[in-house]
């Protein structure tokens, strides 16, 4: 059995998964900062 497809598949999923998670975190942080700005701009001064 040729192991190369398994090797390439494992590397692609793991390295791609780490990169994808980093991008997901970056997008979640951007969304959270937007939500905080919106909350601050509509906050009751009291």
């Amino acid at each position, binding site marked *: *059995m*040729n*192991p*190369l497809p*398994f*090797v390439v*598949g*494992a*590397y692609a*999923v*793991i*390295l791609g*998964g*780490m990169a994808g*998670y*980093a991008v997901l*975190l*970056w997008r*979640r*942080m951007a969304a*959270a*900062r937007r*939500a*905080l700005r919106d*909350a*601050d701009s*509509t*906050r*009751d001064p*009291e």
Partner: protein
Amino acid sequence: MRTRTLGWVALVAVVAATLNSLVGVPADLNQGDAQRVMYIHVPSAWLAYLSFGVTALAGIGWLWKRDLRFDWLAVASAEIGVMFTAFTLLAGAMWGRPVWGVFYQWDDPRILSTTILLTLYSGYLLLRRMTDDPIRRANRAAVVGFIAALDIPIVHFSVEWWRSIHQVATFGSPARILHPAAPGAFVIALLSMLGAFTIAWIYLMIRRYQLAALEARIDEAARRGTLAAARAAAEAGVPEVVPRAGEAIR
């Protein structure tokens, strides 16, 4: 060092270590190219252990100091640990099929206890979503995170305690670290991937912790907003709308 710089360092380190492990190191005499999967399987397993260890210690830190920053650290490391545990099982399956002839072996103690570890911490993340109260959430998570961490030594020592098709740890004792049963090029490739993955883990941990801190501020702002709206409604004579139990306060 700025976090962004650390991210670039992690990227360069992972790319360099990956190129070395894929094309720089020769194939293993017995396993051929399949052995290259070990260079990502072992670092993933190490980071899974590290993540859940941090989750357990952060939970203890919360129970002791009552500082919610410990809880942010716990959720950050648990989420990242679940990812690396899934990577460990996936890489193991990708190595097992060409070498053992099977993707997964239910009666192997190492594989089964790792699957249980993944299930426990997936449950931990689900448990955290069951309440909006940050104090209650941190209390429950700290207890479950500590109990789940008891599976880490079971995973690690399962190959020593029970008969298994898994090989024993390559660096399990000081003697093996000084005199590894593998050629130097293989050991250097493995150690460089361990280092690169650990730098990437530190970067992801910092980012996930920062996100947890932001989410806590959003929850706090939402609570303040709800309180202000209720106060304004009470002053205007509008009947107060009380959220039902379990309803998110937004």
